[in-house]
């Protein structure tokens, strides 16, 4: 299957620390996206990185993509308690023109004040 898989499954850090989450996938992709989900709420799009990009920044977020290893990482710098949420990577299904997103199981991040 195509699924992205994140690790760690859960991460607990102190406010001000950096949080790094990883995602691996299995087949070729056009792009990889990261989403955030607060408990029981909707998915919020954070950042998209295309297969020809290696690194992308958005505010306190830094995403890397290594297509040779089929992996991506999301770094949140100077974390805040409000960053507490689950973070999912999602890959497009680069086959036959499909546009569905395939999500990983997510990393549950807890930022302690």
């Amino acid at each position, binding site marked *: 299957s195509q699924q992205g898989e994140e690790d760690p499954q859960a991460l607990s850090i102190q406010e001000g620390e950096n949080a790094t989450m990883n995602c691996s996938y299995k087949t070729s992709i056009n792009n990889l996206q990261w989403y955030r989900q607060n408990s029981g709420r*909707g998915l919020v799009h954070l950042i998209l990185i295309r297969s020809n990009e290696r690194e992308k920044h958005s505010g306190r977020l830094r995403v890397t993509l290594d297509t040779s290893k089929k992996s991506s990482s999301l770094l949140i710098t100077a974390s805040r308690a409000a960053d507490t949420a689950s973070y999912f990577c999602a890959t497009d299904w680069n086959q036959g023109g499909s546009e569905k997103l395939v999500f990983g199981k997510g990393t549950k991040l807890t930022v302690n004040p």
Partner: protein
Amino acid sequence: EPEVTQTPSHQVTQMGQEVILRCVPISNHLYFYWYRQILGQKVEFLVSFYNNEISEKSEIFDDQFSVERPDGSNFTLKIRSTKLEDSAMYFCAVPGTSGSQETQYFGPGTRLLVL
């Protein structure tokens, strides 16, 4: 970023009943998607809908499910005869506007509980 609303936010139903979940994108979209997330599990693709036709569906999207665009703006997901295992969050999503069409923007979801 396109805005998407979904109604209802919560629905409780008895097994075997029909439910209709609604999605209202603020801007006019031809493409939309439905996903579901069983509690504690990953988000799963259900179906994509383009220009009033299903363009792709997953194995989950069996004969109990259907999608429509009844009035040219709202999109609906119907479950004809709900089962206990249909209990989940259901999200609709629409693609971004030009320059970010690969991105899908999700609505807040409908939490469905089948008793």
